[in-house]
């Protein structure tokens, strides 16, 4: 199988990428074409072993950027990268994955199915021809392409001296906007992002911050959902932070079965998510289902 490619100086080569200090001479393509780069692109990157909170933020930021018409660029890695691609796909948007290995490889293997879905509507790119094995020393080079393709870069979670900070460095060198999601000062996963903020990156409090910087309209907010009384009570008590189901039962005086029903209602309405036994509020929302029989 052969893969199309674009060459520096040639047709279809993204002008933003050419601004890099050492732009790739050639980019191989899988799935779509470079036409997707006509849309404003935002890189969303971060730690591979992220927290469930970080995963949720990455997914939602990507979803909102995507819904507003931006292309989400990331590195197909586990953790934040994967969630960013998934968020964009969930919004029916376009997303671009940049590989640090041959264009024909799916790395990590666990993301083969994700890669397939990305290639269906969006695009996978690599500066490496088919057959090149993934190798850690190629990842910083991959990160320069991620930063180079995007008009802004969002770092969701990053440990100190991690790969996502390299992406941010490339973006700063190019004079592009860098956003970092602020985190707890006690968490190693936020050490890198908090440090970026100290160095002048914009703290990201909502996807709207990025859209404003790019001059994009925010997608219209979801209509106020029509929730059951239990759903409203549970949603209200989640405003104080992530809670276990037992904590919700205790805070709302709703029974365990009813709380489970309400949480499913909120999950299906896109108002809450569940990970590792903790339920959290989201910023988005869809029409809630009718769950009360």
């Amino acid at each position: 199988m052969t893969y199309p490619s674009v060459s520096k100086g040639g047709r279809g080569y993204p002008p933003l990428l050419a601004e890099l200090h050492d732009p790739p001479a050639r980019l191989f393509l899988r799935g779509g074409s470079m036409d997707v780069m006509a849309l404003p692109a935002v890189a969303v990157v971060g730690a591979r072993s992220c927290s469930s909170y970080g995963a949720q933020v990455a997914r939602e930021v990507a979803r909102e950027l995507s819904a507003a018409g931006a292309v989400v660029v990331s590195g197909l890695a586990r953790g934040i990268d994967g969630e960013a691609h998934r968020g964009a796909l969930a919004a029916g948007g376009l997303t671009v994955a940049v590989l640090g290995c041959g264009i024909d490889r799916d790395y990590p293997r666990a993301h083969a199915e994700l890669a397939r879905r990305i290639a269906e509507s969006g695009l996978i790119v690599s500066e490496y021809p088919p057959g090149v094995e993934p190798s850690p020393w190629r990842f910083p080079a991959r990160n320069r392409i991620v930063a180079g393709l995007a008009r802004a870069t969002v770092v969701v979670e990053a440990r100190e001296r991690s790969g996502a900070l390299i992406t941010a460095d490339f973006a700063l060198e190019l004079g592009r906007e860098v956003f970092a999601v602020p985190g707890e000062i006690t968490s190693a996963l936020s050490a890198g992002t908090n440090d970026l903020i100290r160095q002048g990156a914009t703290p990201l409090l909502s996807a709207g911050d990025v859209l404003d910087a790019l001059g994009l309209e925010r997608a219209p907010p979801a209509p106020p959902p029509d929730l059951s009384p239990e759903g409203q009570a549970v949603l209200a008590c989640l405003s104080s932070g992530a809670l276990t189901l037992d904590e919700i039962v205790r805070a709302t005086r709703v029974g365990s079965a009813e709380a489970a029903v309400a949480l499913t209602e909120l999950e299906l309405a896109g108002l809450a998510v569940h990970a590792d036994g903790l339920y959290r509020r989201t910023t988005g929302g869809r029409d809630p289902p009718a769950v009360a029989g």
Partner: protein
Amino acid sequence: MLARAVTHALVGLEARPVEVEAHLQRGVPGFAIVGLPDKACQEAKERVRSGIASAELEWPLRRITVNLAPAGLRKEGSGYDLPIALAVLAASRQIPPERLAEHAAVGELALDGRLRPVPGIIVAAEAARRAGLGLLLCPLESAPEAALAGIEPVPLRHLAEASAYLQGRFRPAPVEPAVATANGSWPDLADVRGQERARRALEIVATGGHNVLLGGPPGTGKTMLARRLPGILPALTLDQALEVTRIHSVAGVLPSTHPLIDRPPFRAPHHTASAAAVVGGGRGPRPGEVSLAHHGVLLLDELPEFQRPVLEALRQPIEDGSVALARAAGQAVFPARFVLVGTMNLCPCGARGDPSVECRCTPQKLAAYGAKLSRALLDRFDLVVHMPRARGRELDAAPGEPSAEIRARVEPASGRLRESRPSLGKEGRDLLTRAVDTLPLSARGRARVARVAATVAGLAGAESIEPAHIAEALSYRAPPELAP
């Protein structure tokens, strides 16, 4: 001179009649056992000879041949000692052969002639009764178990008592049949404070007989809850109790003081257990933990720690409700219909699900941890219950509802569900379809949710599955990292 005794060979949970023929001939004194005895049965020679001497009976100085018929059936174990000794005594006319012929006999002999219990007494006793024999000569400790089979046991302490009884000189005390009373009780859910989520899940599990996976950091009470599941399962019927008792008897783990197992069993093999120990096998063959948990609960604590072959071997019993073990002469089938409870940490370091600790597992380690459990096995868990670490307030919670009150809801609901399954209407189906579209939920996940929703509806006494039942069932779905 020739005499016969009747005993039984265990084949799985069945007993086949075996005729023990003792033949005394002139010639050089000797003793041979023929008819496919295994090593333990072959060694009966030493125990029988020594036992007869200890009972102050006479060892015939003849060429003695004992034939175990049918010859094609392998004779395993030491339960042939007593019938062999009695056949030899009858052939030498020290006891009346016609009296012996009215009895079945089973039991191991110690070198001093005392009788010792052997596995499978209830099964042998049932077979004797079916063959029209009303009396079973057996060790004293085994008599209550034999009485469960509706046969009259003749409880014996020593070979000397057996010969005295058959000579009409000794009458053993009659055996009280074991009555079906609760032998002790399982730990109670009243001991568990808080944990409303997990308690509700256990009630659904007990009602529908669903397999459940409890996930969370160490020390959140996963094992403590699992041990309280048998106490809320529907009570065993007498037929079920006898079935469980047979299995435990054949496995040699039946308590002699209270031989009828009349409440759902609970088994929790260690994660180092072999596949043979868990699903059965070895000599006999012996039923494994899955069969010992029949009509009860099998807890696999720290599921990912179990060896992969053990987990793979579990699939057949979970699928079929029984285990078929190959043996030399065909197959032995043991029932194995149990509720499987698995527990696991959410990651190798155990921090996931604990709001106060940060997980330091690398993505590679996390992926390897999940990969230890095969998709096929994870598919068998209808409910996944997260048990995150509580932030200090749980201890203030009131004592929980006692198990007896929960069982009072479980029993009628599970009875109703056995009679008719609640139907899934259009509204419920639409909600399921929406869930598949919106959440990470696979087609197999959808089927599991529908099963759980039917049980939730049954607990609510509803005839059809309402959207609220589906919504609750959806909250027990497996997270995407376990079942994409």
